[in-house]
C-alpha cells in the first residue's frame, strides 16, 4: 500500500497538524518508504495468533476506587497559555 499527497493532507487533518505544504512531497515520499519497508510483515504467518497489547504477563492490581488527589486548581492552571478566574481560556468552540 502507498499514500498520495492527498492522503497525507487528509491524515494531517485527522491528526490536527497544519498542512505541511512545503514538505508535502518529501513527506509523502518518506511515508511511502516506511510503508514499503513494513510490507515485509506480510511474510509472517500470524494465523490464530493473539494480538499482543502489553508486555506485562502478570495480573496487575486495581487500586481502590477512591479519590486520592484534588483541590489543586491553581497548580493545574499554572502552565495554561491563558486562564482567567480559575478557568482555562480557550478559543470559542460553539457557534
Amino acid at each position, binding site marked *: *500500500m502507498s*499514500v498520495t499527497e492527498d*492522503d*497525507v493532507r487528509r*491524515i*494531517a*487533518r*485527522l*491528526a*490536527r*497538524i*497544519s*498542512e*505541511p505544504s512545503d*514538505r508535502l512531497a518529501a*513527506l509523502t515520499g*518518506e*511515508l511511502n*518508504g*516506511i510503508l514499503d*519497508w*513494513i510490507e*515485509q*510483515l*506480510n*511474510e*509472517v504467518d*500470524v494465523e490464530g*495468533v*493473539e*494480538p*499482543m*497489547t*502489553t*508486555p*506485562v*504477563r*502478570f495480573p*496487575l*492490581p486495581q*487500586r481502590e476506587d477512591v479519590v486520592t488527589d484534588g483541590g*489543586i486548581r491553581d*497548580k*493545574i492552571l*499554572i*502552565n*495554561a*497559555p*491563558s486562564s482567567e478566574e480559575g478557568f*482555562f481560556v*480557550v*478559543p*470559542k*468552540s460553539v457557534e
Partner: protein
Amino acid sequence: MTDFLTLSLADITAKLKAREISATEVAMAALDAAEASQGALNAFTSFDHGKTLTMAKASDDRLAKGEGGLIEGAPIAVKDLFAVDGVPTTACSHILDGFKPPYESTVTSKLWAEGGVFLGKTNMDEFAMGSSNETSFYGNVINPWRAKGSEAKLTPGGSSGGSAAAVAANLCFGATGTDTGGSIRQPAAFTGTVGVKATYGRASRWGAVAFASSLDHPGPFAKTVKDAAILMQAMSGHDPKESTSLPLDVPDFVTAAAASVKGKKIGVPKEYRMDGMPAEIETLWQQGVDWLKAAGCEIVDVSLPHTKYALPTYYIINPAEASSNLARYDGMRYGLRVEGQDLTETYEKTRGEGFGHEVQRRILMGTYVLSAGYYDAYYLKALKVRRRILEDFDQAFEQCDALLTPSTPSAAFELGSISADPISMYLNDIFTVTANIAGVPAMSVPAGLDASGLPLGLQVITPALDEATMFSVGAALEDAAGFKNRPEKWW
C-alpha cells in the same frame, strides 16, 4: 582538585559517607563542570542551582547524622522527559515551551528519596524520537568521544544523548534515561557507559512524558555495572499511580551484580549476525563469547527467527501509540499555543509549529495505521507479529539463561551523516528494539574500542524479572573487558 568527579557512584558515596568530602562540594564541582561543558557538548537543557544546593545541603545534614540512602549526596542528571517539580520539563520539544510541572515523576522521587541530588535536565531527541539526538529543539548533543586524530563532531546516540554524554564526560555520577527502542542502550554503547532497562513495569513511567507506553522503559546510565545496579535498584518498585507497574518486590540488584556466572548458559542468536556488520563488531562479539566461556559459562547457539521483523513491527506500534499519546498537546492547558481563526486552526497551527519533522512524521504514520481501513492491515498485524517475537524469546530462554549480542551495528557516527534517511536512522536500533517489544531486561556494557578509538558495547538480555542474571553477566563482561577508557577531555 575536582578529580573526584571521575570516581564511580559507589566510590563517591563511600567518600561522602566517610565524610571525606561534602555533598555540597561535590554538587558545586559537578555544576561547574557541567556548565563549563555546555558550549562544547550541549548535554544539558536547564540547571537549577538553588534546588541542587538545597538538596546537597539536606544530604550533608543527613550524612552528618549518620543517615542517608543508597546514593546519598551524589549528583544525578535527569533526562528532560522526567517531570521534576518546578523545573522546566519539555521533552526537548517546542510544543512544551515553558512547561514547569508542579509534580515529580516517580522515578526521580525515588532517586531523591535515596539521597540523589538533582544536577540538571539533559538534552534528548524531541519526545525521545531519534537515535542521534539531532531532533532536539535545543540542538545536537556532541559526544565527548572523538575518533583518533579527528575533530569531527560525533553523535552521542539517542534519544537519551545528553544523559549518556553527561555520564561519559564525568559531569555527574549517574543519569536517568528512557528506552523505547534502544534509547538508553544505543547511547550507552556510543559513549562507553553502562545503560540498563529492566523488565517492563519495574520502573514506573508515571511523570515521564509518554511516548509509546507499551514500549517505554525508564532506566539508568552509569559508569560501572555496579553503579547501574545501584541506580536501577533505587528507581524500581511498585507505583500505585501507574497501571502497568509491577506489584512485586525488587530483588537486590547490587548483590546480583557481584554473583558468579559459573554454569550460566549464554545464548548466541544467529539472526543477530547481520550482513554488512563491521568486522570489528563481529570480533568483539566473539571476544565476549570467549570471555564468558573463560568465566565458566556454557555457550549455546539459539535462534530468534522473527528478529528481522522487529523493527518494522516497532515502526507501526510505536507511531500508533505516539500519535495517541501526543494528541494531548493541543495548546489549551500547557505549553505552546499558536492562535488561529478558530479552534481547529488553533490546534493545527499549534501542532504544526510545535512539533518537529520527525515527530510529525511519526504522528502521521500512527494516525494512518490506526485509521479506518488500515487498522487491521497494519496495527493489528503488528500486534500479532509482536507476539511471535515474544515467543522467540520464550523459546530461546528454554535453552539459555541470557543472550549475548552486540549493542549497536556501528560505533558513534558523525552528526548529520544519516539524519536525512529515516530508515537508516531506525536501523540503529536493530539489536536493541527486540527487548522493548518483548519487555525483557537488557543492558549495554562497554567492551572495547574500535580501530579509531571509539567505544563499542555488548548487550545482555535476560528473561522477564531476571535482572539478577543480567547484572551478573554484565559484570563478568566488564571484569573481562577491563574497560577503563574515558574520552580525553577537549571541551
